[in-house]
């Protein structure tokens, strides 16, 4: 008796699920499949977190990223403690003060924890004044100490807080990817659309251009273009030029996807119907054809962003991409260029870990989206 009832309930649930499946829209179906992809969910969560950090970087940074502390140069990352020297547990985490000493052998400046002073870490603490998005004046920070210093990732050669700089760098580096992909998307859709929809000679010419661009080694090409940039340009101009340079090659793959899909779709009846109804070519491409494979476009865009981020960091790292005072992860890593610096100050490599995590998250997300968008899986 008991067993039978269980079976019945399962049956009802199953058919409910089935009914939902039949009535679900295409996007709902994709979301169902996407949710099953654990890594993609993790990737999505990581990216949301990183982008929130980037968007509100002024708030999440502990200090003004340009603030120099000449008495705290090359401080190693501070450890956060819960248990103090006497073994007592504190609910509010704290850091010890810093004492400057010199290494008995090399005479280098080193910092040791001064166990006699404790600086508890507070949330929503008052700190350096800033203007959120250059609009809202504020002085609250997500976390910080009321006195003393909090250097979670250590400091650089002028005593600037690396944690705050990494957070500010997130804004620039993450949005370079988006802006670059936006340009690639526009170029890719227009040229791929023309190529696939009209076919013929136009198609051949555009395909040859794409083959040509893909066969070129990208870094040397980017390098020569970036080096051609006048040295006295404003940071904003430099930023846009770099993203345009990056999208110069980025659009090729997108154009190929668009073309392939259009070639397939333009023969279908609904296109003929639209044409008979008097729609012009652009209306057909933009209103009837593009929405048909928007899911493929989203997948391709997601997978194109990491390439842009890697390109920007590589160029900035070499000193021919973004330049200070702009803060990006590549610019930050430029400080860690030679072995002497890295050997003594390995924490300068931390921004690189953020690059790896971001690209990894984008790849996971893109993989999940690709599986979800593929109706045959």
């Amino acid at each position: 008796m008991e067993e039978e009832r269980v079976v019945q309930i399962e049956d009802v649930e199953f058919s409910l699920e089935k009914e939902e499946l039949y009535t679900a829209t295409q996007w709902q179906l994709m979301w169902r499949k996407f949710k099953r992809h654990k890594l993609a969910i993790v990737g999505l969560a990581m990216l949301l977190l990183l982008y929130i950090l980037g968007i509100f970087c002024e708030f999440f940074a502990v200090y003004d990223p340009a603030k120099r502390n000449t008495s705290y140069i090359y401080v190693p990352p501070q450890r956060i403690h819960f248990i103090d020297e006497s073994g007592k547990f504190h609910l509010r985490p704290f850091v010890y003060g810093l004492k400057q000493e010199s290494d008995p052998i090399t005479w280098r400046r080193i910092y040791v924890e001064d166990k006699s002073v404790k600086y508890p870490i507070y949330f929503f603490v008052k700190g350096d004044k800033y203007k959120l998005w250059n609009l809202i004046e504020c002085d609250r920070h997500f976390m910080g100490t009321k006195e003393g210093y909090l250097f979670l990732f250590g400091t650089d050669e002028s005593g600037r807080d690396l944690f705050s700089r990494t957070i500010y760098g997130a804004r620039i580096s993450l949005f370079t990817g988006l802006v670059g992909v936006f340009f690639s998307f526009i170029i890719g859709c227009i040229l791929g659309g023309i190529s696939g929809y009209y076919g013929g000679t136009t198609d051949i010419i555009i395909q040859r251009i794409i083959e040509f661009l893909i066969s070129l080694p990208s870094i040397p090409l980017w390098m020569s273009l970036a080096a051609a940039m006048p040295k006295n340009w404003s940071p904003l101009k430099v930023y846009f030029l770099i993203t345009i340079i990056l999208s110069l090659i980025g659009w090729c793959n997108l154009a190929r996807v668009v073309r392939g899909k259009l070639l397939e779709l333009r023969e279908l009846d609904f296109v003929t119907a639209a044409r008979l109804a008097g729609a012009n070519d652009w209306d057909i491409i933009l209103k009837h054809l593009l929405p048909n494979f928007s899911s493929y476009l989203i997948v391709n865009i997601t997978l194109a962003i990491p390439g842009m981020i890697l390109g920007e960091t590589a160029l900035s790292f070499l000193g021919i991409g973004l330049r200070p005072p702009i803060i990006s992860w590549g610019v930050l890593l430029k400080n860690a260029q030679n072995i002497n610096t890295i050997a003594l100050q390995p924490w300068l490599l931390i921004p690189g870990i953020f690059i790896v995590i971001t690209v990894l998250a984008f790849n996971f997300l893109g993989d999940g989206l690709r599986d979800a968008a593929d109706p045959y899986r």
Partner: protein
Amino acid sequence: MQLSYLLRRLLYMVLVLFIMSIFSFIVIQLPPGDYLTTYIMTLQTQQGPIDTAQIEALRKQYGLDLPIYQQYIYWIKNMFKGDFGWSFEWRQPVGKLIAARLPMTVVISILTLLFTYAVAIPIGIYSATHQYSFGDFFFTVIGFIGLATPSFFLALVLMYVFNRYLGFNVGGLFSAQYIDAPWSFAKFVDLLKHLPIPIFVIGLSGTASIIRIMRGCLLDELRQQYVITARAKGLEEKMLLYKYPVRIAINPIISTIGWVLPGIVSGATITAIVLDIPTVGNLLYTALLSQDTYLAGSSIMILTFLTIVGTFISDLLLAWADPRIRYT
């Protein structure tokens, strides 16, 4: 394979190089000023003001007084004679500078390519035949991380790890005492010791993506019905795997040389700069920074040439490996 296809491909290569030569020349001329302005500034700081006649003489000597298109024609004409121009900064013929670095660039690229395939194909086969096993999972994770790590960052991390834990400096291709020494067996051994790290750094991302492709292709192939038939007829598992599915799955891999090679040249450029390896990419970098026109232009040309020739060879290989592909 038909001769006309070969000829057409060769013609196409020449066209690409021609476009690239114009492009690189224009790009290099874009920044305001030229090498001479920098040079004159250093002269002025060293010897005080120099008169305009001297500047004009210098301009003439370097051919910088001509309009750009004439400079370009002059450059191209000489290139056919084997003269790539004069490097202002190194005060040496460009041809000589590039020739000194070209062998090492080619060697590193080819070794990286071999490393990529030698590592990626067996791992790809293993991952496909042991799908969802621990090994498959392990290589998938490594592969994703390999794709996500910029080569320069990997180089930096390795530099740190080797310096910190093994007390070994990974920069350069030779130990200090061998840099200017003539070739000898000891120098060769020293080179072999220095090569693995750059090759690993440059090859990692390519390896990671080829593992993914190989795994995917082979999995698709293993699901085919002929595999089931062969197994049903009692063909030995090893024979079954290597005789058909692996051979078919390798075809797309061969065609990947077309984009793996540009990636390797790119990766090699930036890795060479970080690890201080004398390659053409490294030369290009310094030339771009000092506006050394002819050196930068010729370096871009050589790098493009290497890439295109590599792609061409991969196409020939593909035609040879897969009898189903016909070129008309």
